[in-house]
């Protein structure tokens, strides 16, 4: 039995290894490509290892795209902050209190989660045009939050429904105001769910392309997804730099997966995440 079990384990490990190699090959290929020159990348042969690994693509892309990388960070961070500011109090109210509209609101959020971003983007373009919100950080961040707000409220509410009621009751009886109960009791107890939601909201803002494409045109700032998009037009001339920018674009996801793996797995399991 144990021998058979060992054999199964070895077979499973081998299977996992093969799957991972296939599944993660695209990422390996971008990293290798980002270390090659344009001539090496556009030759007649694909190189599985960089012939002469150099970081010159990175220095080139950081000098030409450095500002855009900072912009992308700003967009990601403020998207996360905005989503938290909207979603955390709302989730608390929907979990703790009974409103006549609670069921309607929760149902509305479920539907909002389903709505395609492109539909919203097309309308927002025309609405922003009139409100003079095109080509602005606030306009873009407001739009990017739409990926995360419904998901975050639903996830946080589900989490908060599980908090022990007597603790909150006690705080209230003790004379703490609604707001104080929320800040001093609910928030600290919901920390892990808040982190989960913040991580995904940041990645939504960092990786957004639809809203940047539709709501920015010729603005002074842009996220790197738009930069990568403009590299597509000149695919052959700057592919090394484009690949280096792709690696920079996937870094936050990789780093957050290492740093906050527990929260990411939790967010995935609780439900839908992507716009």
């Amino acid at each position, binding site marked *: 039995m144990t021998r058979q079990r060992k054999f199964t*384990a070895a077979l*499973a*490990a081998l299977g*996992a290894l093969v*799957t*991972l190699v296939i*599944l993660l090959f*695209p990422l390996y290929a*971008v990293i290798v490509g980002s270390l090659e020159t344009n001539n090496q990348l556009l030759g*007649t042969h694909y190189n599985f290892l960089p012939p002469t690994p150099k970081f010159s693509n990175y220095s080139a892309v950081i000098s030409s795209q450095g500002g855009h990388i900072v912009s992308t960070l700003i967009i990601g961070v403020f998207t996360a902050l905005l989503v938290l500011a*909207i*979603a955390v*109090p709302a989730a608390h*109210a*929907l979990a*703790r209190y009974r*409103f006549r509209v609670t*069921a309607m*609101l*929760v149902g509305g959020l479920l*539907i909002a*989660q*389903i*709505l*395609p971003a*492109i*539909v*919203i983007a*097309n*309308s*927002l373009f*025309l*609405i922003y*045009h*009139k409100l003079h919100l095109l080509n602005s950080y606030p306009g873009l961040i*407001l*739009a990017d*939050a*739409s990926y995360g707000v419904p998901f975050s409220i639903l996830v946080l*509410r*589900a989490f908060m*429904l599980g908090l022990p009621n*007597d603790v909150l009751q*006690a705080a209230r009886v*003790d*004379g703490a*105001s609604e707001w104080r109960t929320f800040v001093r009791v609910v928030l600290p107890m919901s920390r892990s769910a808040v982190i989960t939601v913040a991580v995904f909201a940041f990645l939504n803002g*960092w990786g957004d*392309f639809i809203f940047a494409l539709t709501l920015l045109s010729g603005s002074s700032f842009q996220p790197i997804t738009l930069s990568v*998009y403009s590299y*597509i037009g000149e*695919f052959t001339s700057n592919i090394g730099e484009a690949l280096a920018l*792709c690696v920079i674009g996937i870094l936050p*996801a990789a780093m957050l997966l290492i740093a906050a793996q527990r929260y*990411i*797995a939790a967010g*995935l*399991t609780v439900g*839908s995440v*992507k716009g």
Partner: protein
Amino acid sequence: MARTAAPAQKAPGRRSQRPDRAIAEVSRASTWARWARLTFLVPAVLYVLFAFLIPIVYNLILSFEQTSPATISSLFAPFAGIANYKNALVQAVTQSAIIRTFTFTFLSLLFQFVIGFGLALLFNLNFPLRRVARSLVIIPWLLPLLITGFIFKFLFQTEAGAVNQILADMHLVSHPIGFLTSPGWAYLTVLIANVWIGIPFFAVLLYSALQDVPLELKEAAMLDGANAWQRLIRVTLPVIRPVIEVVFVLGFVFTIKVFDVVIGLTQGGPANSTEILAPWAYNLTFQQFEYGQGAAINTILLLIALFAAPVYIWLNRESLRRA
């Protein structure tokens, strides 16, 4: 925990000292509190109006208007009846985009489920480093979608593309395949990229469902002489069915609105062979400046997506019941 539990012990003592005053305080607070409770919801309600309800309604209005680049600065344009829908739907591109959206979604979900479930079963076995493997699998799900599209464009290039190189090294092809230049291959390439993105979602959710299958059930089936395949079909699948339903509904919702990957890889080409509804709506609005027709396509996309709404709400009935 200890810190937040402390007030609970203090409360009764204080109340027993001055009962009448405590009651007065509570009731006075409750009128105020009712308003305070509502203020928690205000930002979310305003935001839902701004980012979802108004854009959806505006899109609907727009789809019935006679729009042109000149009408962009005025909020409303003349009524056009169903002209936008007619003009959009008579185009062959629109018709094939609608059909393609469905075939693309169906094939994506099929492969995502088969591969994702396979991985979930694999991770459910005990082997060294399975935790690491499990977290590495998540990566494709977290990447910016446009960047994924670009990466696949790089991989599937005709000249010096990695995939063509691998196929040539394995002596499977004598000439490089024009993955992004021939219509059939381009569709397959976009499909592969999209399946790649969705595998982690299916794998992680199905894996966590497998973890919750009670061991006693499997052991009982084993004692009854069921083999591994029978246990999978008769025991495991029925138990995790609710999760499978959720995964498919959400997968449908994600796939129906695929946009970035198409733009990154093919931009709908070659010869519109990879045009599906979301990029087509964008094309009409932003490249042809047919705002009305773009809005009409968006309404159609919206209606298809909303097919999932009743199912999704039903699957979430538990959370609504607690409202």
